[in-house]
């Protein structure tokens, strides 16, 4: 019979959080430890809300869907980037250290401005279908057919939730602010694969054919290892690099 995961041992979790409020001139980054009684099927979403509601109402963090699909709650969990909402505490040791994702602007405590970064990336790489007649699309007639396998391949790349874990796990992104990262390069491969997008390889080369793009990747594979959606990022980057070498 199926069972809901239940943590039988009554642990007291020690949750150590890297705190800093840049809006407060007196704030200095520091670690603060909170104690939380572990509950059955407890996630970091539940634990952090409990801390905020009962211990420190000023604690900042971001959750939206709390179901692992919106990408809001990326943070460093015991040294590794991941989605806090779907991390069950019983899979972690009793002492848990949480820090904000690096490489993004800090809003406060565990909250970082991934939205601003991702919007900037989208604008720079023009992550949308480029087509002459988009505004005049004939909406009455049958849609253009697409091979079923191609649609599934596109979705495979489109499952990215822009959580920022790949950026936090990327050596290049730590060294150069303007690197578009696996999230950006994956989107380029997605639109390159899409026959609805009329851009040529030469045009894609203009967007990612340098060190801030596909040639900045050092193949450390942190992005793929840390991707919560298990996207084949390293393969996509390697493929794109070959194409861009040919286009360049």
């Amino acid at each position: 019979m199926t069972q809901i995961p239940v943590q039988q041992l009554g642990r007291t979790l020690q949750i150590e959080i890297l705190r800093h409020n840049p809006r407060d001139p007196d704030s200095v980054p520091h670690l603060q430890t909170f104690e939380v009684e572990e509950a059955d099927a407890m996630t970091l979403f539940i634990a952090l809300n409990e801390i905020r509601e009962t211990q420190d109402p000023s604690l900042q963090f971001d959750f939206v869907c709390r179901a692992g699909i919106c990408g809001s709650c990326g943070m460093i969990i015991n040294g590794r980037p991941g989605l806090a909402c779907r991390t069950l505490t019983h899979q972690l040791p009793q002492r848990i250290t949480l820090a904000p994702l690096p490489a993004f602007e800090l809003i406060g405590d565990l909250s970082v401005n991934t939205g601003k970064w991702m919007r900037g990336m989208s604008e720079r790489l023009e992550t949308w279908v480029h087509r002459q007649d988009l505004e005049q699309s004939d909406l009455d007639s049958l849609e253009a057919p697409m091979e079923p396998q191609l649609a599934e391949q596109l979705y495979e790349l489109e499952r990215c939730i822009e959580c920022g874990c790949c950026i936090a796990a990327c050596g290049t992104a730590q060294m150069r602010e303007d690197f578009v990262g696996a999230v950006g390069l994956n989107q380029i491969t997605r639109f390159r694969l899409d026959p609805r997008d009329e851009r040529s390889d030469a045009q894609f080369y203009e967007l990612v054919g340098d060190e801030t793009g596909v040639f900045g990747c050092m193949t450390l594979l942190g992005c793929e290892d840390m991707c919560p959606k298990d996207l084949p990022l390293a393969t996509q980057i390697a493929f794109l690099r070959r194409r861009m070498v040919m286009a360049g």
Partner: protein
Amino acid sequence: MHTIYTDVLVIGGGLAGQRAAIGARRRGQEVIVLSLVPAKRSHSAAAQGGMQASLGNCLGGAGDNEDIHFADTVRGSDWGADQEVVRMFAHTAPKAIRELAAWGVPWNRVERGEREITVDGKKQTIREADAAHGLITSRNFGGTQKWRACYVSDGTGHAMLYTMSNQAIAAGIPVHERMEALALIHADGRCHGAIVRNLMSGELVAYVARATCIATGGFGRIYRVSTNAVINEGMGAAIALETGVAALGNMEAIQFHPTGIFPAGILVTEGCRGDGGLLLDGAEHRFMPDYEPEKKELASRDVVSRRMEEHIAAGHGAKTRFGEHLWLDIRLLGAAHIDTKLREVKEICQYFLGVDPVRELIPVRPAQHYSMGGVRTDHHGHSPQLRGLFAVGEAACWDMHGFNRLGGNSVAETVVAGMIVGEAIADFCESPEGALTLSTALVEDFGRREARHLATISDGHGDENAFDLIRRMQETMTAKVGIFRHAERLEEAVSSLQDLQRRSRNISLRSSAAGANPELVAAYRLQRMLKLAQCVAYGALQRTESRGAHYRADFPRRDDANWMRRTLAVWPDAKATLPNLGYEPLDIMRMEIPPGWRGYGARDYIENPQTALRQEQIEAVLATLEGADPETRQAALMPFKHLLPEHLRGPNQRLGEQS
């Protein structure tokens, strides 16, 4: 006060808001979108299973058209919907999906030849036509006669939202992220924008606009157990209510989704059952055919959720330390299907339950899911009471869902309504009525009022805790204003909520953190959520019938004689603890489909004498039109195309038809 001027202010960055924004932008209007979170993190992304549009490409959808989609939606609504709006919707849905296909959504496609499907617990082999190969396919969903839910695996909302957001970026539409509208600026029945709080700095900013559009989604977080994202607190509907002028429609109409995972309440898609999954009880018996022989697991959500709770109450639930639940069984669909078409479901089960749905059962129980009610609008998404205020998507009561929404009709509504309302907003801005005529003193007044209100909360020395009161509100709603409602419990809920409203004015904050201060945010949202909760509870208490998702155990029949009426709630007195309720009639004599049996659920309802009259009238009209084409016959009964923007009036081509 820092003031930003724009033509159009869209509050909410989900599918509906962004589509309306794109529409207005294309017409040359300057548009700014405000969003609590980065737009791509909006709750639209959580829609999993599909978008209803009657393309009819795959075998299960063959023969589908707008007429059947219309009829399914009206029956789903339990005759609570505005049928003209449903017609506008069903007609535009195929256009919306084709637009999104052109914009980049990787809709799953029909594959020619034989494939195996699961129907009613058994495997069948079907053959898809060669001619349909590569066209958009669809899956089965509850309460529909055809396979009509077009999908992208089970990440449909995610794929739609990313495409929509990317197109909005391409159109150069700014999204001001982490911004929360606190109040609508209005005077003399005209809305002029909003006072907005920056959720990073805490600063107040005025956005002055010719047209303001609420697109903030639902308000599921007034309940303890909800599939909704934590941002779904209904702040858009609440600030419309707080104008004291704009009305909210049918707030008591709350949908409970049959398959929230237990106990977390996270959604697993209706597509699980659409694709052939079954509901089992504690003894692993498939119980739905016992209650609903016609549609079984695929009756509408209100009916299935009620049957599930009824079955649990009869002692057939699976018992755990968290309480009782039922099982969703998708094992029979097989690993290949689950790994490609239900992969988000699989991930959710693995991460939150430690369950592999290929081999194991999924614990489920109904959870609050959707708000049919919202800001009442006309056919064009415009508030009849407050000019210049528009609403679109789940935040609106446009009213295509009535008292129960069909699965897959919500994401469809977002984009369809966005296409229609975006045009209406542009029309308004171009009209003399749309001119910007307010005084800056009015903006300053509203700004000062909001700053004072925040200061009152921050400086409060009461003994109440905001987080504690939110929990009490949520528990009250889940325990007393849930699936089965009763006068006694509703009266208790209304009185508890009144008490909580009084207590919410007596909060003291423990934190004075610089910036947005999450505790302050909780405190001011609580006061607004309590008003919405009271509209739901009080509206439910007054509605002495059962219709769609609103089920009164003490009034178990749908009462067409007395309740062919839409509830309208207004809140003119800020100090009051109850809304003023009014009602507007649903005119049977103008309906294309007069009230009847839905084809599932209860057969017993109280008839309105007008139903028979209208039925006779319809038969008489159709008798004069024998041999006429379906469009002429439809137009003779209930014309609607004049309500659509001109470019959306054309006929929808289907497979095998000439364009």
